[in-house]
């Protein structure tokens, strides 16, 4: 069955440290890939997306993600986290460019300690 997996339910990281959130998908073809972030009381905000081209994509808030076809992964990274990065992060995929039925991973909660 097609699925999106975020293996880490919860990650704690120190402020200033690097962060990497994992996302794996199982689809027959390369899907369209997204990372969303949800801060407390906020909606799901799009951080970045990958449709095609350069496999390293830059997003907002200093985040980047790398698409690796061989590993069916789209991991999210940030070199130095800020306390405001504490939030829940969701990986999502769509099968076509006009497919609005996003399939979401279960989410990873990031806690930032001082």
């Amino acid at each position, binding site marked *: 069955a097609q699925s999106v997996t975020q293996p880490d339910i919860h990650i704690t990281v120190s402020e200033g440290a690097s962060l990497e959130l994992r996302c794996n998908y199982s689809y027959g073809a390369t899907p*369209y890939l997204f990372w969303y972030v949800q801060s407390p009381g*906020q*909606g799901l905000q*799009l951080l970045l997306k990958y*449709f095609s081209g350069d496999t390293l994509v830059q997003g907002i808030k200093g985040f980047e993600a790398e698409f690796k076809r061989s590993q069916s992964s789209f991991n999210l990274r940030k070199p130095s986290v800020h306390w405001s990065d504490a939030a829940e992060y969701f990986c999502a995929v769509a099968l076509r*460019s006009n497919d*609005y*039925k996003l399939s*979401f991973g279960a989410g990873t909660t990031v806690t930032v300690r001082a």
Partner: protein
Amino acid sequence: EPEVTQTPSHQVTQMGQEVILRCVPISNHLYFYWYRQILGQKVEFLVSFYNNEISEKSEIFDDQFSVERPDGSNFTLKIRSTKLEDSAMYFCASSDGNSGANVLTFGAGSRLTVL
């Protein structure tokens, strides 16, 4: 920055009652959606709406659910007779369809608790 707004932020209701969740999508967007997230589970697609009609719905979106765009700004989700398992966070989203229909802007969600 334009945003999708949802009301109420939290609603508690008794089983069997009707609930209406309201959303104001971004004004120039043409595509509207509802997703939901049951506590501890994944965010799931419920329904999409375009040109004043449902364009697609999931198997979750049964006859108890309906959507409406009663005027030029609001987009509502109605649950006719709530069940315990309807307790979830409901997210409204919209898109303009130009940057890819799947570039969605989500609201902050409406948490529904059914007792």
